[in-house]
């Protein structure tokens, strides 16, 4: 067990504070965020516990958890936090650190969440826009669950809720350049 006073330098806390712009040390463990969070019951550790882990420098445990992958960025918690901590920004910071440092949560649920986000980003890279029906279809193929949501498709198509064709950004080149350069920048910041 690590105790706060014993930790000489909590680099994890520093990294999270820097990335999120929040000061996690301000958290006084009241738990208001937990009772507010609509998805805390799905999380390995609810927001309050994540805050304490960061304060204690429990990097491994925090980065391997599924909590930040379940955060919806709904900002319900931060609006009520008596210490005005930007909790979704903290969740985002540890998610980005986990991606950068290759901490992989191997549960099916987190894998599927990541798969979806990757499909989304690929689609925007290709077309500059996102397109729901295609995303659904691709998600089903990649997660080997071909029939998920397919009962919705005929009705949605019939009602013109989703369409077969879709629009592209004209300057697709600009979008692809943006992806390449943003990625390069990300890597240079990391290194």
């Amino acid at each position: 067990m690590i105790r706060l006073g014993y930790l000489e330098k909590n680099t994890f806390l520093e990294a999270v504070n820097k990335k999120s712009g929040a000061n996690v040390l301000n958290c006084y463990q009241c738990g208001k965020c937990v009772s507010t969070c609509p998805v805390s019951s799905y999380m390995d550790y609810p927001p309050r516990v994540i805050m304490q882990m960061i304060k204690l420098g429990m990097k491994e445990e925090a980065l391997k958890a599924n909590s930040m992958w379940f955060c919806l960025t709904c900002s319900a918690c931060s609006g009520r936090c008596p210490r005005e901590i930007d909790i979704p920004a903290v969740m985002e910071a540890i998610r980005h650190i986990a991606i950068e440092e290759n901490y992989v949560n191997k549960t099916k649920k987190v894998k599927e969440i990541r798969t979806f986000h990757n499909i989304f980003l690929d689609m925007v890279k290709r077309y500059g826009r996102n397109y729901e029906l295609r995303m659904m279809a691709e998600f089903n193929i990649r997660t080997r669950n071909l029939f998920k949501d397919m009962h919705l498709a005929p009705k949605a198509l019939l009602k013109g809720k989703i369409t077969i064709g879709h629009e592209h950004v004209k300057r697709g080149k600009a979008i692809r350049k943006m992806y390449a350069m943003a990625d390069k920048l990300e890597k240079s910041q990391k290194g």
Partner: protein
Amino acid sequence: MTKLTYFPGCSAHGTSEEFDHTLKLVMKTLNVELEEIPDWNCCGATSAHVMTENLALSLPLRNLVLAEKLENNTMGIACASCYSRMKSTKKYMDEHPDKAKELTSSVIDEGEYTGKVEIKSMLQFCYEEVGVEKIKSLVKKSLSGLKVACYYGCLLTRPKGVTQFDSPEYPMSMDRIMEALGATAVDFDYKTECCGASFSISRTEVVHLLTGKILEMAKEAGADLIVVACPLCQSNLDMRQPDIEKHLGKKIGIPVMYFTQLMALAFGYPEKELKLSKHIVPVEEALSNIGKVVETPQQPTKTKKAVPSAESEAK
């Protein structure tokens, strides 16, 4: 005629065509011309900020830069998710001009960013720029008799520091607009609860749980229908409703309409312009309440209902 830069968002030409269409009708009546950002791109919601830092800022920033090429001072955004991404990017860029320079010089190939264009959601535009009084004065067909639950979701009013609009806990702007149209806005405790839209495809069971509660509470509050201002909320609440009913093991059957559909109706546009056939949960029965006398209050029925169910559970 006022001009407003318009960012429709990816769903405007697919899942939420009825929003886009009725928004344009409403703006015509309000004498506002919408000027779409030329060659706009997806703002990256709901995935870019989850996975990346620079891309999450660059996708909205390109739109902000393109918007500055138009003459207008304000941009209106239809989707709450796009609004949130674009407005938080604007805030970040205004506070970190060095970052804006870095991105516009190396990542985005469209010119400079100065930050001169204000961003508002279309709901915010209607409430702040047009105003309830003006809306009221344009009503040709009162919606009296119709009871609505206004659902704002999370991103239209949160976080307060970004949106600078209405209350993050219990907003009333949409309720006031609905009242101006003659409808009755019911007390609705779940008006800012998250519907889980970002998990719509990947973690559908979360959506069923969160959205199920919102639908049940709206029904309990005595509403004929739910009014929304975001395409993602609409498709979660409407398209997934039959699945949620299955999941809950009971019928809810509450239609979900855009605030602009009801504004267009009250401004005298014929019902066929509302594109009602797009709805999965049919709205016709709810709309037939228009003109009927509303029985108030709903509160006592709520408690009456709650007591026997608690008792039966205890048995």
